[in-house]
């Protein structure tokens, strides 16, 4: 029965609830306005809007789980929009997501996805499976397609620990909501290709946690070396990439101190090669 004065909806998805009852709050809520504008002026469609873009993020599997990391830079054209942006988000106790694309909608999607999973867990009394979470994110990316046509691309990289299979998993997406599972590692964003090249050279199956962490940071370092959109370690301001580790014990942040010490080592090695 319908309850007066309280929100009624008939499935456990918060995203569906918003879409049906509060469309203005969904990331796509703006698309009605945007598409009518775009229809009137088709030439002002894709890419005409200048918004901060988040760049390189990556994930890699190791023996007990997954490491996910991202740089801290957001760019707007040839300007740096933000030096300390956070692109890796804890979604729930066993999963994390990193984002590349238009920064605002990206962060909004991560926040909505967090609420989506928590909402499902509270309503149903159980957590969604790892596969279920990945599929749900795919539907949200798909719903964002009209926004992508306007140039507001949201590209997530999703990692989770699958408690049933007892392994870490990595999922990548395409603009149309296509969902693909990666077996070893993946990187997306402007420096994604550079990061993937580094990981391809050094990746080993069943790496130990410290090696995997070192490898993602090295890949980010190399990406920053070759890609203007990717921020490397900023030694002057003390800004370092962020990373999270997802395994059977849940999700943990890698401390800034640990990341700094790995970079200190990397820089010393680099310098000795150049000298």
């Amino acid at each position, binding site marked *: 029965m319908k309850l007066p004065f309280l*929100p*009624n*909806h008939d499935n456990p998805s918060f995203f569906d609830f918003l879409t049906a009852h*509060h469309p203005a709050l969904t990331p796509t809520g703006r698309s009605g306005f945007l598409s009518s504008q775009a229809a009137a002026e088709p030439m002002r469609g894709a890419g005409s809007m200048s918004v901060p873009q988040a760049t390189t993020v990556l994930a890699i599997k190791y023996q007990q789980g997954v490491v996910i990391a991202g740089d801290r830079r957001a760019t707007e054209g040839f300007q740096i929009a933000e030096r300390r942006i956070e692109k890796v988000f804890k979604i729930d106790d066993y999963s994390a997501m990193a984002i590349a694309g238009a920064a605002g909608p990206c962060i909004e999607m991560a926040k909505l996805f967090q609420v989506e999973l928590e909402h499902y867990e*509270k309503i149903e009394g159980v957590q969604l499976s790892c596969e279920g979470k990945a599929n749900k994110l795919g539907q949200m990316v798909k719903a964002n397609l009209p926004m992508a046509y306007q140039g507001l691309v949201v590209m997530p990289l999703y990692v989770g620990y699958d408690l049933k299979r007892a392994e870490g998993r990595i999922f990548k997406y395409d603009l149309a909501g296509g969902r693909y599972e990666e077996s070893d590692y993946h990187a997306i964003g402007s420096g994604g290709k550079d990061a993937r090249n580094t990981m391809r050279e050094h990746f080993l199956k069943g790496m130990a946690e410290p090696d995997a962490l070192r490898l993602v940071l090295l890949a980010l370092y190399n990406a920053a070396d070759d890609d203007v959109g990717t921020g490397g370690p900023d030694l002057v301001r003390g800004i370092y990439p962020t990373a999270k580790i997802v395994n059977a014990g849940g999700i943990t942040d890698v401390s800034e101190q640990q990341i700094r010490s790995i970079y200190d080592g990397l820089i010393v090695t680099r310098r000795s090669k150049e000298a």
Partner: protein
Amino acid sequence: MPMPYYVSPEQMMQDKAEYAKKGIAKGRSIIAIEYVNGILLVAENPSASLYKISEIYDSIAFAGAGKYSEFENLRKAGIRHADLKGFMYSREDVTARSLANGYSQSLGTIFSQEQKPLEVEILVVQVGHNGHANEMYRISFDGSIIDERTFAVIGGKSEAIQTLLKEKDLTQPPELREALSLCVASLEQIGSQKLSPETLEVAVLDRTREGRRFRRLSPADTTPLLAP
């Protein structure tokens, strides 16, 4: 044309209230009580999967007595209300008071306008942190809302348990172990039967936890706490 019988509004409300009370009286009781680190909720519930106590938000919990399908519907609506508010504004703007008001409005409207009132009694509790006090709201089938202190009881024999708890000295919030034994002893005394940890549903809102403060205590958690 046959005329419908005239029933006075007083009579109608009284009949509805009696009907609802009868439904609630069949259900077992649920106790919420303040303990040193937050709020403890204890329900007599032989089912391990059909819950009467549930998490609503970071520091808010819900308990329902009476007809399962009806309070389950209210519980889900409460989660939607809280998640929507938290998403629209911020997590700290979600309050038990606003939710309790929503429930009160909803139950009150259904009681006066629908043929059949809801046969439920519900509790909305919020653990206070950073020096804020706990909040406990008891909402009845007719939408009346009572702001409780120290403890709150809903369900079949709630009045008897309330009388029992009033006699205890609860000026200082007890430890978790004491609070749990007190609740179980009260439920046992009123129901005049022994309750094993498997027949209890126990949860806490623990202010020492970060983020989501609601936690269920399984029989494995409660057994050592209840051991003499």
